[in-house]
């Protein structure tokens, strides 16, 4: 990667780190929320569903702004969390939070659809064999929705790699801390003659995201084969 400056390599590494952690940390929540939405009936279900989708609907800048208000140092959540030592403001963790939240609806959707495709009769069969709800989930539902989880995770990862508006609004663009690949691309695009550099970064993004996608196809197909058993 001789043709990448150190700042660009820094941005690339940061983007990978941010996207990786954004995906990994959101995943359990994503599975939980998807399961709750798919299989439980509870008051406030539609509110939860709406909330989850908000980042998709809102212009990213607005989401970023809301994050800033909520998780900023003086925000209602940001303050208390800071006392616990969890700081998002101007940290890569904040970029991961923004990316995770923006990717969350995609992840939940994918997982939820795959949960809804699991035949409850198989879960019932698990229960008759002595598995508690949680064990049924772990031994029947979870393995069967693995393709959906993989799909959802990669989708989320790809989205996180491309996230820009909410991230820069929330944690701004601090080289080495919060300057992700898209921020760098954006910066290059703002100035005349920045295109060459921007193109270079875009190509890198594409290569990474495509690799992730290909990997997910491959893994997903293998898992699906295992799950379908054919």
């Amino acid at each position, binding site marked *: 990667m001789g043709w990448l400056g150190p700042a660009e390599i820094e941005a690339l590494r940061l983007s990978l780190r941010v996207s990786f952690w954004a995906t990994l940390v959101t995943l359990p929540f994503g599975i939980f929320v998807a399961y709750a939405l798919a299989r439980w009936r509870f008051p406030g279900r539609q509110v939860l569903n709406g909330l989850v989708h908000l980042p998709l609907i809102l212009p990213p*800048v607005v989401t*970023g*702004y809301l994050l*800033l*208000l909520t998780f*900023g*140092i*003086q*925000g209602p959540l940001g303050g208390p969390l800071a006392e616990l030592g969890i700081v998002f*403001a*101007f940290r890569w963790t904040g970029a991961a939070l923004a990316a995770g939240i923006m990717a969350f609806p995609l992840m939940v959707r994918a997982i939820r659809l795959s949960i809804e495709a699991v035949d409850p009769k198989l879960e019932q069969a698990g229960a008759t064999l002595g598995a508690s709800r949680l064990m049924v989930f772990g031994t029947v539902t979870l393995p069967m929705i693995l393709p959906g989880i993989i799909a959802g995770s990669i989708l989320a990862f790809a989205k996180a790699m491309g996230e*820009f*508006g909410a991230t*820069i*609004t929330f*944690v*701004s*663009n*601090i080289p080495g801390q919060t*300057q992700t690949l898209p*921020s760098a691309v*954006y*910066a*290059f*695009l*703002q*100035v*005349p003659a*920045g295109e060459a550099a921007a193109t270079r970064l875009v190509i890198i993004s594409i290569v990474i995201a495509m690799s992730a996608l290909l990997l997910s196809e491959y893994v997903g197909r293998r898992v699906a084969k295992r799950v379908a058993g054919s």
Partner: protein
Amino acid sequence: EGVLVFAAASLKTALDEIAAGYEDTTRHEVTISYAASSVLARQIQAGAPADLIISANEDWMDVLQGEDLIEVASRVDLLGNGLVLIGAQDTEPTEIAVGLDLITRLNGGYLAMALVDAVPAGIYGKAALQNLGLWNDVEGQIAQTDNVRAALALVATGAAPLGIVYRSDAIAEDRVGVIGTIPEKFHPAIIYPAALTISSGPEALSFLTYLQGDEAQAEFLRQGFSLPEG
């Protein structure tokens, strides 16, 4: 029929007001599309049907001029603007000069600015900091945003203690206080060039002329803009 104006987003409040006045007096319709200067320039390069462009960035105007996309004769420096250092609402004003205790005032926090290599406000701000001899000290503590308003928001929400933004932006934000205006000698002149595009009709010229009239200029001034010397 009607005039389509492409204008830098930061002009919105003033320009909406002025255009309304123009429509009232002339019964001619003015439509304004606000976006970042880079976006506007690229769109004109791609054949956008704009009649008049008001950019916040001379470089982009030069690009358009180099490609013969604007009527060179019509190009004017329509407006100027100033840079201010802002902080929390109750911050003591002070004079901005070489030797400013910026680091102390930051107190470990971040200085919010627009992208210092890409967005005009950031580029001007960086030049000012360099000329003030502060750049090397604060370089690592700058939180860059994709536009000036986002930098303003960082200060307004308390995420960043200080920021450098346009005077026109700072003026109406109650949650921030202006610490001081950065003397113009520390940065290149902030110019909003305007020009007719090569596809413009006669109506556009009339509006451009109106923008340079007293009524319009008074409104610009009221919004914190300045008039370029000469």
